[in-house]
């Protein structure tokens, strides 16, 4: 019985590791083979993830607007997104004559590759992580900021006024909100004293930071969610692709699979920022425990750690999706005012509060 209960991602990974190390003698080749397997696993995880997110996006939109949403293809419309993907594969990918052809085709590749690279250090379950490097969160912030180059490249190379305007807006927006995202991540780094994702998760074994960090950490959590919604260009901050004024924004000229790549990158980024919020503030894969309620804690321990992680991540994704249908889109000056005149000073003062709290030990 115990054997059965202990089937988890980490035991699966370690049994694959032991099986491979018996088959392959050379340590370097073994490492490379394992990393290749991990990369392929990530791809296998990503495609269903994007299907689920695409379906969820439509269903949440329908739910918020009292509509039915997709309900024809497959049970409850679940296969609609698969049908759409197949359609996109069979579409013609156009490259406008006036565009800079090399940069035009390079831009979607950069955007997707960057968002897939950011997935690497995320801890999906207990002891189950693709790559636990010692600069974890710094890696995530630095790599994710490369995406803006891809977006600017897409907008400029299209030779289209809408695209250029959308890309410029998007560039200003992404770089501005990166400051607040960075500062709210630093507030957690101050509390844990480590950049490593596994250390950050382990530091929340006796309570998630959002609970034991009191008000300052809660403020950073709220700032993180707002600023990262803006950083991934989602409504109400989606004015780089505001349909009503810019048709499609920076991806107006893209069609077929190249367009789908931007969509894919958007969903992966949505997952990554939600996973980061869950890891930093909501304890990653740590189960929910209440003080000395032993029985309750044991019941919570029975829920697999991967379910805890995905549950928290999808809860945040659900909140970000609800933003889209709750708030009207901001104007570009309002957008930059919100960041530079409100979020940035608040997060600066908040950092000082967090530091004082950590020095005084005013947390559990």
């Amino acid at each position, binding site marked *: 019985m115990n054997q059965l209960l202990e089937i988890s991602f980490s035991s699966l990974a370690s049994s694959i590791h032991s099986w491979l190390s018996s088959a392959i003698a050379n340590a370097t080749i073994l490492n490379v083979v394992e990393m290749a397997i991990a990369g392929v696993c990530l791809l296998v995880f990503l495609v269903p993830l994007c299907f689920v997110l695409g379906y969820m996006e439509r269903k949440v939109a329908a739910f918020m607007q009292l509509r039915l949403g997709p309900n024809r293809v497959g049970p409850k419309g679940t296969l609609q997104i698969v049908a759409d993907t197949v359609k996109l594969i069979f579409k013609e990918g156009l490259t406008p004559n006036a565009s800079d052809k090399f940069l035009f085709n390079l831009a979607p590749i950069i955007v997707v590759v960057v968002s897939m690279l950011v997935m690497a250090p995320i801890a999906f379950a207990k002891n189950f992580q693709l790559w636990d490097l010692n600069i974890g969160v710094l890696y995530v912030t630095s790599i994710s900021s490369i995406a803006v180059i891809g977006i600017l490249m897409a907008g400029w190379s299209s030779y289209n006024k809408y695209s250029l305007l959308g890309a410029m807006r998007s560039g*200003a927006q992404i770089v501005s909100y*990166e400051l607040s995202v960075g500062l709210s991540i630093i507030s957690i780094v101050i509390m844990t004293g480590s950049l490593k994702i596994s250390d950050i998760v382990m530091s929340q074994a006796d309570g998630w930071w959002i609970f034991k960090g009191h008000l300052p950490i809660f403020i950073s959590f709220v700032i993180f969610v707002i600023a990262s919604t803006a950083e991934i260009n989602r409504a109400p901050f989606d004015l780089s692709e505001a349909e009503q004024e810019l048709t499609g924004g920076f991806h107006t000229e893209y069609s077929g699979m190249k367009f789908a790549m931007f969509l894919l990158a958007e969903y992966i980024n949505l997952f990554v920022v939600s996973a980061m919020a869950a890891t930093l503030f909501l304890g990653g894969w740590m189960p929910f425990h209440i003080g000395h309620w032993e029985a309750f804690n044991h019941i919570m321990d029975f829920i697999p750690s991967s379910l805890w992680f995905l549950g928290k991540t999808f809860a945040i994704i659900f909140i970000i999706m609800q933003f889209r249908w709750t708030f009207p889109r901001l104007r570009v000056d309002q957008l930059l005012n919100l960041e530079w005149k409100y979020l940035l000073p608040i997060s600066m003062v908040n950092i000082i509060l967090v530091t004082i709290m950590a020095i005084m030990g005013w947390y559990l």
Partner: protein
Amino acid sequence: MNTLMLAVEQSTPINYLPVVLQLLVAIGFVIFMVGVTHLLGPKRKTADKLINFESGIPQVGNARQPMAIKYFLVAILFVLFDVEVIFFYPYAINFKELGTEGFMAVLMFVAFFLCGFIYIIKKGALEWEE
């Protein structure tokens, strides 16, 4: 200081091999998908299809026109402020060893930061309505 030394020790180039492999897998995936759709999709390129979209009217003027300087100003301000944010990372890792003295230094740093911030606000660098 100890933690800093440890961090340096662990970061040999071989530790970053996974990112190279992941890069290869990601690039392979994207090129495969775009390649498949290139092979399967129709290729009927007509002159009308390949002109830039401008809401149905013929293209007017040049799309490589100058943009408002405000966007570039925001980008320059970002570079300055982001460097300040980056300086917080080493402090955040080591602040327990640095103690009160380090905290005072960081308070001074934040004070300078806020002075610069107040300066750009007074200067009107973030005013968009004109």
